[in-house]
């Protein structure tokens, strides 16, 4: 069924159009919205686009990097300053999907997708959105908890601090099919350390709930401790706390709960 396509020169105009129409969806790279249209999703009657170059900017000049919502994963991989995000970007699809899919769109990708967002959650990213009432910055955790209600707002950019060291940030997507397959579990950890003790531990999990979530109990198990066998075992033991995974064709909820601790232990101890 044909839909109305509205293309705007500025993100602000697109945001206004989006917030005014409940049946409008924003089209970024197309990997989510075109898929829905191909499947005959009749809840979408209008597709909103913006050609605003501001949506495609990458700013790595300060400690806090800013990535426009329209930046593709291929561009992340081409940016040397964003090396800490290369593993999460490479976890997305094949090359064609990475040439299309965007950082902003990934925030809305449902399981078993959305693997890049797991990394952003561990990095305490901030999501800049433009809604009918103006622009605002939302912590990514809050954004994800309410993302089903965010479809009327346009994501402009995300920003995050660089990890304190290359070793502090770790990422792993567990899939059954190599090199590419849907996520059984996706894990990201950001472990800043001060005098050998972890401060502000962040562990984010994908495919362990309706949206990427923090493993708070595991974070508490690491906080203030050295990253050693005892603290890693303590974190792994409580990795599934608060999680509500689903049974899917890729893995059952039971299996995900059973193996999350194993994968978290491997991630934290640096094992392949």
């Amino acid at each position, binding site marked *: 069924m*044909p*839909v109305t396509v509205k293309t705007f020169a500025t993100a602000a105009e697109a945001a206004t159009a989006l917030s005014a129409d409940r049946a409008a969806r924003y089209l970024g790279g197309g990997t989510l919205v075109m898929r829905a249209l191909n499947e005959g999703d009749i809840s979408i009657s209008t597709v909103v686009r913006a050609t605003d170059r501001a949506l495609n900017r990458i700013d790595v000049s300060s400690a806090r990097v800013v990535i426009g919502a329209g930046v593709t994963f291929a561009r992340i991989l081409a940016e040397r300053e964003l090396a800490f995000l290369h593993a999460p970007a490479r976890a997305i699809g094949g*090359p064609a999907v990475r040439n299309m899919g965007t950082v902003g769109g990934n925030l809305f990708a449902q399981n078993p997708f959305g693997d890049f967002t797991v990394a952003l959650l561990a990095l305490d990213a901030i999501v800049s959105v433009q809604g009918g009432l103006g622009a605002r910055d939302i912590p990514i955790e809050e954004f994800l908890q309410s993302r089903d209600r965010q479809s009327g707002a346009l994501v402009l950019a995300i920003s995050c601090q660089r990890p304190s060291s290359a070793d502090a940030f770790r990422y792993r997507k567990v899939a059954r099919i190599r090199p590419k397959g849907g996520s059984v579990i996706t894990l990201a950890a950001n472990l800043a350390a001060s005098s050998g003790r972890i401060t502000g531990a962040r562990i984010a999990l994908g495919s362990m709930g309706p949206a990427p979530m923090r493993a708070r109990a595991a974070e508490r198990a690491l906080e203030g401790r050295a990253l050693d066998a005892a603290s890693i075992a303590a974190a792994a033991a409580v990795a599934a706390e608060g999680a509500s995974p689903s049974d899917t064709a890729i893995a059952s909820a039971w299996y995900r709960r059973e193996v999350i601790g194993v994968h978290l232990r491997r991630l934290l101890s640096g094992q392949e």
Partner: protein
Amino acid sequence: MAKTPLQFRHNGRDVALFVDGGTNLLVVLREMIGDMTPKFGCGQGGCGACTVLIDGEAHLSCLTLAETVGGRHIETLDGIKDGPNLHPLQRAFAEHFAAQCGYCTPGMLMAAKALLDRNPQPSRDEVVEAISGNICRCTGYEPIINAVLAAATGLRARA
């Protein structure tokens, strides 16, 4: 509903037509232009059978909103041969039995061409990565990987 005018280059030839809102590029190529080389597999971005090059980059035509390609150059399998001569990748696929049922082949060839155009000396791992978004249910991938590596060697020998 009003149709939208659309112009782009298709395998070096200018094309102008009108499209319905929401039409994907694969439908434009197959049903409006008659280029049947890109295939419809899943319509979800999972199989890669519809892979085409847009300004030299691999894209999934089924997930590309047609009106976003205005003014751009779309290259499909139909455009890679040189007159009656097959492209070296096509020849290598034939010689290495890299096509069985053939349905994935156009997408595989375009994904491989996107790789070789940028990286004429890929490693085996780079070939695997380049076709990682393309599903083949017949060959087990090994003949395809070998064909792409052989084509790369052949292209270097010719250059």
